[in-house]
């Protein structure tokens, strides 16, 4: 069933021709339009006006109702009426105590969920005293070496009450093990723990570029994590499929969704091959998208992504539970859109992007600090970012009606156009041999690098406008000195002292034995590595030791040189 009668559509088409010949022709005669071609950021052509005729072919069942297949109109039946999105600002820097203090400040300011950024050594599976960790400890995130650091990070925070998102990737399975061990020690019921690990390896190889092992062992670690978490911590999302980074590295909105859906398919195949039913893990797959500058394109992107995901899970994987087909998404506004020049403008950019995410139906959100183009955000910048979300939630009445733009001729047409383009990419990935093979070959990497370069050239030429940078620049346009978040020089030393103390006080013989056993298990593809890893972190093995034991088995990843 379509949305309109054939007669109504014929009538509209007829009227539109009349309008084009009269009013429109006269207007174009007296004043031509500013640009010859109008299109979205990802290159979908835009008409000057949309009518019912543009959506006449879309079946009513493709829109459906919120909280029901195909979820175009929203993930839940009551959306923000039942539960507003979670204000989840990511934070992490210095020693665990420093981040813990920031968490407590943010909870007091009204944040409703926690999110942790880890420093680069932790992300890459290196201890703070590793030579490659030089200069990086506690810099872009918190430094974690042992289970005790996780305990310090969440000191005084009730993990049964607040959900915790952990932005951790190649070493995710170790951080998960530490999280579980720390929660167990405090006597929590593991079935009540809520939160999300990022743990999306394929997007690392193509976008965020944090890796340890070659592609296939990294996917195996994720498979083990998904399968273990489904049983041990059933309310925790073991993965956040992160389109955000695909955009951050240069991808457009279509690439963001299409590539991440290709990765979703690859992961589901891995877990199903290992013997798990789709409905036993799919409800805990979660997503992370960007909310970028092209306002309507972004809103339609969220709607199209929900519909495509629902169809993949239903049609390709034959999921039966509605929860397996419901795409839930955390959104972050676009750091790439922020400028150092006239940095107060970043507040406006972020607010508009955040509104887009809400109109697109996000479940949780991080709004960037206005100083993000300088360094990690200060407390004041984070407070403004939280206030931005609170103003959207509490002052402007955009949360009372679900999917308020649904039914807009333009929004429905663009949602459909994006969906069609996403299917085309997914077909191509399938034809070329699937996502894992294409990641190994650098196919996605090349597409994203090309797109980044094209965007850069568009700013060079002025075709893409950045206010204060290449348009509306005046004598006072410049970048101000801002107060930036200070780096704690003592941070590295403290982590190293703690590592030395741990190594001096544990049963080193037992740690070595367990590391050997882990390596042995890794040689076989059908043993889940999580139980042994949890034993290891409880025995005070360090993150670096555990990751290194598997590097000896699997080797390191060699990056294809794509420029």
């Amino acid at each position, binding site marked *: 069933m379509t949305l309109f009668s054939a007669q109504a559509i014929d009538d509209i088409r007829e009227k539109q021709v009349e309008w084009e010949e009269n009013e429109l022709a006269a207007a174009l005669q007296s004043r031509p339009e500013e640009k010859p071609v109008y299109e979205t950021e990802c290159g979908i052509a835009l008409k000057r006006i949309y009518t019912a005729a543009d959506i006449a072919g879309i079946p009513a069942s493709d829109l459906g109702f919120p909280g029901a297949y195909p979820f175009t109109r929203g993930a839940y039946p009551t959306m923000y009426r039942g539960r507003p999105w979670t204000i989840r600002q990511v934070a992490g820097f210095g020693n665990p105590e420093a981040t813990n203090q920031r968490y407590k400040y943010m909870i007091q300011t009204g944040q409703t969920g926690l999110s942790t950024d880890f420093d680069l050594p932790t992300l890459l599976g290196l201890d703070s005293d590793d*030579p490659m960790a030089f200069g990086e400890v506690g810099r872009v995130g918190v430094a974690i070496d042992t289970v005790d650091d996780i305990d310090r990070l969440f000191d005084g925070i009730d993990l049964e009450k607040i959900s915790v998102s952990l932005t951790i990737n190649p070493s995710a399975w170790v951080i998960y093990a530490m999280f579980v061990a720390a929660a167990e020690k405090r006597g929590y019921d593991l079935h009540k723990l809520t939160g999300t690990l990022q743990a999306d390896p394929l997007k690392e190889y193509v976008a965020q570029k944090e890796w340890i092992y070659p592609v296939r062992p990294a996917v195996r670690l994720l498979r083990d994590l998904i399968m273990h978490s489904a049983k041990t911590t059933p309310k925790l999302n073991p993965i956040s499929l992160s389109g955000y980074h695909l955009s951050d*590295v240069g991808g457009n909105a279509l690439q963001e969704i299409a590539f991440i859906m290709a990765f979703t398919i690859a992961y589901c195949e891995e877990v199903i091959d290992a013997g798990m039913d789709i409905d036993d893990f799919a409800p805990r797959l979660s997503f992370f998208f960007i909310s970028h500058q092209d306002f309507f394109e972004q809103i339609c992107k969220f709607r199209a992504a929900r519909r495509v995901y629902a169809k993949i899970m239903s049609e390709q994987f034959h999921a039966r539970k509605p929860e397996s087909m419901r795409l839930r998404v955390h959104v972050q506004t676009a750091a790439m859109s922020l400028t150092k020049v006239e940095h107060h403008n970043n507040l406006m950019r972020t607010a508009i992007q955040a509104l887009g995410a809400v109109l697109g139906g996000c479940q949780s959100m991080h709004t960037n600090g206005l100083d993000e183009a300088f360094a990690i955000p200060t407390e004041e910048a984070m407070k403004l970012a939280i206030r931005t979300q609170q103003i959207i939630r509490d002052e402007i009445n955009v949360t009372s009606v679900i999917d308020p733009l649904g039914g807009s001729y333009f929004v429905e047409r663009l949602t459909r156009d994006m969906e069609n383009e996403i299917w085309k990419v997914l077909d191509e990935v399938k034809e070329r041999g699937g996502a894992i093979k294409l990641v190994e070959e650098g196919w996605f990497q090349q597409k994203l690098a090309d797109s980044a370069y094209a965007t850069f050239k568009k700013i*060079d030429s002025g075709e893409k406008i950045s206010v204060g940078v290449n348009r509306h620049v005046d004598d006072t346009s410049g970048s101000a000195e801002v107060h930036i978040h200070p780096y704690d020089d003592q941070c590295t030393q403290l982590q190293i002292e703690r590592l030395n103390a741990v190594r001096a006080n544990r049963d080193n013989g037992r740690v070595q034995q367990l590391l050997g056993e882990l390596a042995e298990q890794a040689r076989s593809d059908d043993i889940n590595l999580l139980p042994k890893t949890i034993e290891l972190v409880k025995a005070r093995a360090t993150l670096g030791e555990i990751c290194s034991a598997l590097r000896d088995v699997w080797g390191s990843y060699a990056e294809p040189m794509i420029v």
Partner: protein
Amino acid sequence: MTDSSNNSQGDGARAGIDVSSPIRVLVAKLGLDGHDRGAKVVARILRDAGMEVVYTGLYKSPNDVVSAAIQEDVDVIGVSLLSGSHLPLFQELGRCLREKKAEHIFVVAGGVIPEHDYAALSDSGVDAIVPQEARSDLIVTTIRKLIAERGRI
């Protein structure tokens, strides 16, 4: 500003080197920072401008970068850093350049670098810093100008 390409020829002739060969640049990532979008875009811009560009790939220590720069016989090392660790890493890069007697190789920095760190970077041996919003022209002229003003060694 004078036309830097003409200057380059003059200085090159004075220094007695082959001026017809293109400027060689090593585009490098230092430390554990995985943000390579900017580095790759810059590599293409410099290539489009006629320079010869070698890209290091990710996760290189200052020592790795200096060794690669010497081996590739480059005029300039262009480092993109967004991890906030620029001060210690550029300091170490400068030390490695001095240790290997390669101070003649210019060092250009780009990425997320707050202005108040510019002076300290200059002290570490960074010859030019390209600001975040820099367009192609500025990136290319910064390198051409460095070489034009001193000539190639």
